[in-house]
């Protein structure tokens, strides 16, 4: 049963620390998305890769956030330094785009708490 895998599931860290979240997209999917979900802002698109190339990261605070895809099986989202306002659930999603139906398959999410 193919699924998007995210690690860690939960992360508690102190303000100022670096946080790295990892995502293994579904094999064969050409598009990877990073979303952040909070009660106040809902689901926000942070970054988006297609065929490992970053196409749009305009939703991301550039000074502290970075997203990469070192290879087709791994996407990372890094926050350095972390701040309490970064506390949220971060979802990775993957899909096949450019061929009509383009649904996004979500991982279980990483619940980040910055204290």
């Amino acid at each position, binding site marked *: 049963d193919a699924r998007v895998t995210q690690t860690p599931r939960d992360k508690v860290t102190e303000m100022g620390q670096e946080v790295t979240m990892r995502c293994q997209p579904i094999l064969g999917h050409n598009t990877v998305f990073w979303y952040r979900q909070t009660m106040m802002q809902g689901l926000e698109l942070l970054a988006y890769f297609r065929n490992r190339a970053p196409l749009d990261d305009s939703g991301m605070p550039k000074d502290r956030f970075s997203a990469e895809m070192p290879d087709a099986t791994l996407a990372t989202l890094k926050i350095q330094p972390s701040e309490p306002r970064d506390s949220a659930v971060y979802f990775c999603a993957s899909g096949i*785009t450019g061929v009509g139906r383009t649904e996004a398959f979500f991982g279980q999410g990483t619940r980040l708490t910055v204290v």
Partner: protein
Amino acid sequence: GQQVMQIPQYQHVQEGEDFTTYCNSSTTLSNIQWYKQRPGGHPVFLIQLVKSGEVKKQKRLTFQFGEAKKNSSLHITATQTTDVGTYFCAANNFNKFYFGSGTKLNVKP
């Protein structure tokens, strides 16, 4: 980015009652998708609508895409407690998915 407005924010219904959530955009959409997120879970794809005026059904769920492709609705007939969750519409703009704020459905048994 693409703006999609979704209403209502919350809906509490008695089991057996119907439920509808609406999604509106100021611009014409290429397509629209609907997702369901159970409490504590992750969004799960339900359906995609592409054609103007399209209506699709999944058991008790009916999805509509407006004639102008600027609005969409999800209607659940005779809700059940298993329908509890947040329903999101997502506008697809050049393969980026912009989610509405969601409608949180609570069903009282």
